[in-house]
């Protein structure tokens, strides 16, 4: 009989398809795991709705659960319950090591450009806080581009959402 703990462990072994340094559990996109009579229900919250990795994440979760000998059921929850605040402390550290500045905390009201420009983002390469926003948008929906004026290195920042 599969336990919820085994499922969580299996899901923690699935890398994010676009940022393989972090797992789906690190990202905080698994909202709930329920085991009932050999069936495993996973409530999954997408990061960004336009993320092309969503189907892949869903299929990989289903595959990992099937690998434990259980029948998977992945429920995609498209509400506001996922935020970058749900990325775990370990996940933030792994992002940093992979060259991404982790996201700033989600503010109370609407996020504005001024907040992003004024927030302190440390360069993941040299640690300097002398970094500037180059582009709100980046190579995937979850990233912005910043530039470190100390080590003259561009780097990616995980968007706050």
């Amino acid at each position, binding site marked *: 009989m599969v336990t919820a703990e085994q499922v969580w462990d299996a899901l923690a072994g699935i890398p994010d398809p676009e940022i393989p340094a972090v797992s789906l559990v690190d990202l905080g996109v698994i909202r709930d795991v329920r085991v009932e009579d050999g069936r495993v229900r996973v409530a999954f919250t997408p990061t*960004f*709705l*336009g993320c092309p990795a969503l189907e892949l994440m869903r299929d990989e979760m289903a595959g990992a659960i099937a690998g434990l000998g259980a029948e998977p059921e992945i429920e995609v929850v*498209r509400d*506001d319950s996922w935020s970058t605040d749900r990325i775990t402390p370990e996940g933030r550290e792994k992002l940093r090591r992979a060259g991404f500045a982790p996201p700033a905390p989600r503010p109370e009201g609407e996020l504005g450009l001024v907040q992003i420009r004024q927030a302190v983002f440390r360069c993941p390469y040299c640690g300097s806080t002398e970094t500037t926003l180059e*582009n*709100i948008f*980046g190579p995937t929906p979850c990233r912005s*581009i910043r530039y470190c004026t100390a080590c003259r290195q561009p780097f990616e920042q995980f*968007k706050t959402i």
Partner: protein
Amino acid sequence: MSAHADLLLEMADDELILGWRNSEWTGIAPFLEEDVAFSSIAQNEIGHARALYELVAEELGTDADALAFDRDDHEYRCAPLVQLRLVPDWARTIARHFLYETADSFRLMLLKEMDDEVVAGLAAKIDREEAYHRMHARMWADRLLGDPEGRERLKAALVELWPYALGLLDAECNPRYVEYVQGYVGFELPEVEPARREQHLDELPDLLREMTMVRRIAPAGQW
């Protein structure tokens, strides 16, 4: 179809067609950052369209791809503002971007307050992503408004697109929208009749033809 599904379908069509139009800047934007920005915005809009189509599809007993690609031309409800093909005119593109994203925020505000938790939840999620589009649109509006030539060109584009912009929201929402836009840009826009949503512009059929081409060639294709 319920009034509710009707509204979601209008929104989904707006987001899909605008996503398509925004993606026309991919590779030819004035500079690399904007190439990336418009491509990323397009990707978000198409993601929103997909999530909205999925909700509508549940009610209609179909799927998101069928709604996005298999309808007849006259069944698309996208507003004329998003149908316009604006490449390679940057001022008109920024004008539409600003007008659309602003109107969209008013529409999302209403959806977020709906009793239907699924719709309200999805609207809240979409709105988090749209906050970045609004930031980008305002940044560009500010930049063009701060330069004499930019200001003239943006103003001309806003005046030209204004009847289309007024066709995005219903009559009840429009007064607040008009007040916000005029307050932001600092000048009055003409009092005109809105370009109605039912109106299809001459450039829409070409877009639909191109967008649905692969689906028509291989209807059962899996990607």
